[in-house]
């Protein structure tokens, strides 16, 4: 897809009209997609964007004539190149799937069969219907690997899924989708699970290949900046309905609907930076390692001022979460010391007294795993109250209600189970649980990364409000630069267990950058549809220079 | 089995051997109330049952363990008894079908000196399976095997009255007893005392299985099977008809029954009484039933409360519904006991009066005499004592309530019952396979000094009679003494003799036999020697 929309489009390839889909949750059918029209021309790339629950993946799969178990297509037509996929038999669809319509799933790691080598899975479809001989298919696969810039394409096919990195897997899956040169590929959040720096490469690779073979594609994501790079047209979805649809540039320039505008707005949130040198927690030259072999923290020094927010950024494997474990005492440091209000903090968890434990609380990335699904909100928030402050019975419930109020939740939630709350609400509960302890420090480990952008914003605002009220300090671990901008006073950049840079937000986020910071920042997708093109160009130049 | 039928059977047996004419037989038959036609057909059938040589005889026995050994001193039960004694070997004497002792390896025997000295003559020309002739030395060695310091033999106690054994010439053995015992010939008929070849070192060769019997040992797999082939030069005329004999240890009664039904075996012991009617209704199968010496009893320790009071004991005796139990649990297979351990078929047996039958009123009376109006005690039982012990006990418990007696039935584990319960718990189920003589039975279990005095009952009068009767050679006097002893035991003893059990066994129709012995199961354990195929 060129930077402008002048590219010649073929005839309609896919036509969806009045698509209605229902989902089943314990015995009850409720609408997921409430009547969506969608047209896709040959060689065209359509971006489907929306928050979770918008029904984008469901539509994407429906475009293949497939509904997940527990879902059913109840109305509308799905016309793929003259074939009505709604009425088509399993057998007919099976012929199309893989051969003419291919699917690239979000988590390649989970979607590759762990028992088979990549190459076998790549060529499976191609060889199955005798479209080509195995040798030919293999040769072709290797070629695809090469085009997708996979390292040593000849041999990588011989590896098993668990032996290659996430980014490579995602590309391998694209190769698998391409193996039969389909007319249409469904990309279902293909880069969501990847680090920014990896994401860049994968995006580039996918975009090129789709362009080369002039394949039509539906690109599903929640990340505007990403879709801006990939799609010719963007369709915004919400609660199973189309909000608006327009060519990419138009959409970015002047979104019409308020909802779309709010999506854009998220990017604007930014905290007023304020520096302080009243340090409450300081980590000094800490080394830490799992089972004494791999050093995950290498001479790390970080200091957290009272009532301020220090954001720790880095990609997966940078050791930022390990830092949190070291501070909480889950992973006692092998070297260095941690000072809390000037006093050294005993390294191991079991050596810390109740009060110390109370003062340092933690909030996890996934509220699903950090809230016990079998406990009601009352128990979850109430427990710290009982445990630390000995508040019981009615008093406890009153306090719980206050806390719920402070996290802007109605106290009627008090008897709910976590499973009955939305992602955002759950995360609020974990915040409340942390607050209940009345801590001095809260360690936030990727607390927003699992959430939709709008929800992210709400949570971030809430955290800031709470900081104002209680003067609590945040150690905010994240990989998302936007979030960092939004919340931090100071930033710590980590890479391979080392601290690359620590300093005030303004300083870190503005040149001159250390090399890694540069790479990191530049890899963050921008709203500009030309961003990727330009970035690749500039990096190419940089290579040439070097 | 009433006495006339006995005769009739005997007569049939005789008839087969041509010793009874059709007329004699028919008269006997008519006398016992059998119609003429029936008598005729019986007679002819008997003739048809004329012994025939040949055939492979397979027997399923409800005993046998992987620990069974060739050592006759350790034969625990029917399996080793029937296979390794009754089929393979002979003792000095044997008990015939009518319960009389007759010579076996010994041709003759006579007592002198108040039955303290016994002279046995070894039968002429009788040989072992290896062709060697049996001599007095072999006999002595064989019996010596059970004596001596570390003998583990069950026969040890039987022979403890033997003061000395001497060979007088190649085929005469002289026994000196510590006290007179008119029944000594019975003692040496025991299945633990087969005659075995003497080894050069003076000890006896029990391992090889070389004996004198009607069949030679082919293979013995403990707990599985024992197989035999015919001994062509067996000394006994008209015995040992089969070519081969195999005994299979089939402990599960259902499996045993099925084996018979499916024709895998031709003979089984210890039939399951519940399904006996079905078995009988099978045209190819005959069920035989012999009331033997064996009796199912419950024994109380008379030295312990409340059983130390004779009135309590009597009350308990009257509280047992023997008839009901016989009818329900044993489906009528047996003869109700009367608290006398001597089987009616045994010489000198009497039936003491008053009969102890189910009589709650009387039981109450005796309780009163004992100064009680109700009674409650534990009764330890397990089917290891005898099949049906548990069910009988429960039935008893139910009925005894009427007499104000509350029996608390405790089911003990079968495993180790004889070690941990019998002779230990105050009131237990027990079983005696019985002995062929009054003296032997009483000496074993009711004499004050008996090793297995499971009632701990010591009655002076009883004991002096016992000793006296032994050396008493005058039949009449002896009978009187034994009668009195049985009466004393019945009135005062600690045993509740529920019933004499019948050996209920089944076999294929095409097997023939003479009169069946009552002293042991499986035709006195000698089924293989005595039976034959008719077709």
């Amino acid at each position, binding site marked *: 897809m060129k930077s402008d929309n002048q590219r010649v489009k073929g005839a309609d390839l896919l036509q969806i009209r009045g698509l209605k889909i229902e*989902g089943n*949750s*314990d*015995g009850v059918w*409720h609408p*997921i997609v409430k009547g969506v029209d969608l047209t896709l021309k040959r060689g065209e790339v359509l971006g489907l964007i929306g928050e*979770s*629950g918008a*029904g984008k993946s*469901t539509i994407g799969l429906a475009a293949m004539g497939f509904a*997940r178990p527990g879902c059913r297509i109840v109305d509308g037509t799905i016309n793929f190149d003259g074939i009505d996929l709604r009425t088509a038999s399993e057998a007919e669809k099976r012929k199309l799937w893989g051969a003419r319509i291919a699917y690239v799933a979000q988590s390649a790691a989970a979607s590759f069969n762990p028992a088979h080598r990549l190459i076998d899975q790549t060529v499976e479809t191609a060889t199955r219907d005798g479209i080509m001989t195995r040798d030919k298919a293999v040769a072709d696969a290797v070629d695809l690997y090469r085009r997708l810039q996979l390292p040593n394409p000849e041999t990588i096919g011989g590896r098993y899924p668990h032996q290659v990195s996430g980014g490579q897997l995602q590309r391998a899956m694209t190769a698998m989708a391409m193996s039969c040169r389909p007319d249409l590929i469904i990309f279902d959040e293909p880069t969501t699970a990847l680090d920014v720096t990896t994401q860049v490469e994968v995006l580039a690779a996918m975009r090129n290949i789709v362009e080369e073979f002039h394949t039509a594609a539906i690109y599903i994501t929640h990340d505007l900046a990403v879709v801006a790079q990939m799609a010719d047209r963007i369709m915004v979805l919400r609660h199973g309905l189309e909000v608006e649809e327009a060519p990419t540039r138009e959409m970015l320039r002047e979104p019409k609907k308020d909802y779309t505008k709010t999506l854009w707005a998220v990017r604007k949130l930014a905290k007023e930076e304020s520096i302080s040198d009243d340090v409450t927690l300081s980590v000094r030259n800490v080394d830490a390692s799992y089972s004494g072999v791999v050093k995950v923290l290498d001479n790390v020094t970080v200091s957290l001022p009272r009532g301020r927010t220090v954001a720790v950024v880095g990609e997966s494997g940078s050791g930022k979460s390990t830092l949190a474990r070291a501070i*909480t005492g*889950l992973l006692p440091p092998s070297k260095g010391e941690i000072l809390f209000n000037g006093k050294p903090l005993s390294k191991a*968890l079991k050596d*810390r007294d*109740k009060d110390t*434990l109370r003062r340092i609380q*933690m909030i*996890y990335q*996934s509220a699903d*795993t*950090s*809230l*016990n*699904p*079998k*406990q009601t909100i009352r128990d979850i928030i109430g*427990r*710290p109250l009982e*445990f*630390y402050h000995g508040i019981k019975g009615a008093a406890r419930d009153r306090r719980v209600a206050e806390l719920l109020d402070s996290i802007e939740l109605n106290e009627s939630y008090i008897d709910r189970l976590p499973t*009955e*709350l*939305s*992602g955002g609400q759950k995360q609020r509960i974990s915040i409340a*649980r942390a607050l209940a*302890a009345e801590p001095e420090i809260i360690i936030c480990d990727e607390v927003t990364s699992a959430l939709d952008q709008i929800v992210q914003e709400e949570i971030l605002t809430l955290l800031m409000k709470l900081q104002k009220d209680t003067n609590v300090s945040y150690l905010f671990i994240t990989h998302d630069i936007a979030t960092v901008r939004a919340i931090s006073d100071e930033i710590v950049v980590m890479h391979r267990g080392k601290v690359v840079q620590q300093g005030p937000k303004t300083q870190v986020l503005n040149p001159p950058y250390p090399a890694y910071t540069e790479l990191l920042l530049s890899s963050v997708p921008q709203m500009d549809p030309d961003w990727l093109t330009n970035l690749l160009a500039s990096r190419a130049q940089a290579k040439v220079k070097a | 089995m009433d006495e006339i039928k006995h005769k009739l059977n005997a007569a049939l047996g005789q008839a087969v051997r041509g010793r009874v004419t059709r007329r004699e037989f028919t008269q006997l038959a008519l006398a016992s109330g059998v119609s003429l036609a029936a008598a005729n057909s019986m007679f002819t059938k008997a003739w048809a049952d004329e012994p025939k040589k040949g055939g492979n005889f397979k027997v399923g026995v409800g005993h046998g363990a992987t620990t069974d050994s060739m050592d006759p001193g350790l034969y625990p039960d029917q399996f080793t008894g029937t296979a390794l004694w009754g089929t393979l070997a002979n003792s000095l004497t044997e008990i015939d079908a009518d319960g009389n002792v007759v010579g076996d390896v010994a041709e003759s025997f006579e007592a002198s000196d108040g039955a303290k000295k016994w002279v046995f003559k070894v039968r002429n020309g009788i040989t072992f399976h290896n062709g060697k002739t049996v001599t007095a030395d072999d006999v002595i060695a064989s019996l010596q095997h059970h004596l001596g310091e570390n003998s583990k033999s069950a026969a040890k106690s039987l022979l403890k009255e033997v003061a000395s054994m001497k060979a007088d010439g190649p085929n005469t053995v002289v026994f000196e007893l510590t006290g007179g015992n008119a029944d000594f010939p019975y003692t040496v008929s025991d299945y633990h005392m087969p005659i075995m070849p003497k080894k050069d070192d003076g000890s006896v060769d029990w391992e090889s299985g070389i004996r004198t019997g009607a069949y030679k040992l082919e293979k013995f797999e403990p707990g599985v099977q024992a197989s035999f082939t015919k001994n062509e030069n067996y000394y006994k005329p008209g015995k040992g008809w089969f070519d081969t004999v195999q005994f299979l240890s089939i402990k599960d009664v*259902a499996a045993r*029954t*099925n084996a018979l*039904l499916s024709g895998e075996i031709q003979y089984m012991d210890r039939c*399951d009484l*519940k*399904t006996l009617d*079905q078995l009988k*209704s099978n045209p190819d199968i005959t069920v035989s039933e012999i009331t033997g010496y064996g009796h199912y009893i419950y024994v109380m320790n008379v030295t312990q409360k409340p059983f130390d009071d004779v009135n309590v004991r009597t009350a308990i005796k009257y509280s047992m519904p023997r008839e009901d139990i016989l009818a*329900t*649990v044993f*489906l009528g297979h047996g003869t109700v006991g009367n608290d006398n351990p001597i089987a009616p078929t045994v010489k000198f047996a009497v039936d003491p009066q008053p009969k102890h039958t189910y009589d709650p009123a009387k039981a109450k009376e005796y309780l009163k005499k004992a100064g009680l109006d109700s009674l409650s005690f534990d009764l330890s039982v397990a*089917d290891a004592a005898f099949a049906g012990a548990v*069910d009988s006990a*429960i*039935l008893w418990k*139910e009925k005894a309530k009427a007499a104000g007696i509350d029996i608390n*039935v*405790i*089911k003990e*584990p*079968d*495993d180790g019952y004889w070690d941990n319960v019998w002779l230990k718990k105050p009131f237990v189920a027990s079983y005696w396979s019985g002995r062929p003589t009054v003296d032997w039975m009483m000496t074993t279990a009711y004499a004050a000094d008996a090793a297995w005095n499971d009632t701990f009952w010591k009655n002076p009068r009883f004991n002096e009679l016992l000793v006296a009767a032994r050396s008493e050679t005058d039949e009449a006097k002896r009978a009187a003494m034994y009668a009195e002893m049985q009466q004393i035991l019945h009135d005062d003893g600690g045993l509740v003799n529920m019933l004499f059990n019948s050996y209920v066994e089944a076999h294929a129709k095409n097997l023939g036999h003479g009169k069946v012995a009552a002293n042991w199961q499986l035709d006195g354990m000698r089924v293989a020697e005595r039976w034959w195929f008719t077709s």
Partner: protein
Amino acid sequence: MTAQAPDLRSVRARRTLWENTRRTLASAPFSAWFGMIVILIYVIAAIFAPWLAPYGEAEVVGKAYQPAGGEFFLGTDQIGRDLFSRLIYGARNTIGIAFVTTLLSFAIGGTLGVLTALKRGWLDQAISRVVDAFLAIPVLIFALMLLAVAGKSIINLVLILALLDSTRVFRLARATALNVVVMDYVEAAKLRGEKMGWIIFKEVLPNILPVLITEFGLRFCFVFLTIAALSFLGVGIQPPTADWGSMVAESKTLITFPVRTFPWIPAPFYPAMAIALLTVAINFVVDWFLHKTSGLRDEK
């Protein structure tokens, strides 16, 4: 499309427990219904045995092996007790004993399993080794020996079977718990400084309960099959206590004679069928339960 399920729920008002159960039951397949009804009947029989049974448990009411029908609904047994009554009391004893045993084995095995999963280290090693040893010895024979040692009584039977069974429960509980103890909420509890007891019973146990309950159903069946086998080998349950296992064993010889000709022959069949039916019923329910909790939906 599980992704938005929570959102949907959050807008819906919270359901009462009763409503939940009702919905769940409504969605139950036929097999599950069948199972539940059968179990219900058994439980009722077990609880109200004395009122339901026409005669007493051990009461001798007639002659041995009276034919079914007429005075005795299913005829009488080997000493003339009413078979139907014994069948009903059998429900009480068999189910009761099996239930207690299983409960006990889960109490032991479950707790230890979770504990070791949390603690690991030498304790884990030690227990696991012993458990392996127990698993390596055939249950029947070992039970036989232990019963001979401890003496034959219902209490001992229960204790011994529970002990032997708990080793199997232990394994499962441990394996399942291992997946839970890595959860953040367990870590959160540790960070809070919670005691082991709280973590086991409040954090972990509730989350492995479905698996345990499922296993409970199956173990339950195995237990009374084991009891049946033990009865067959002659170390059954104390008479006159009626227990299906021993009832089958007692009348085993009746199995091999033609049914038609003798109306009372089916004697062993009733208890056997009682056992079979219950096991099947339980498994149906368990299957369904498993299916629900695993959240897995078969296609079609």
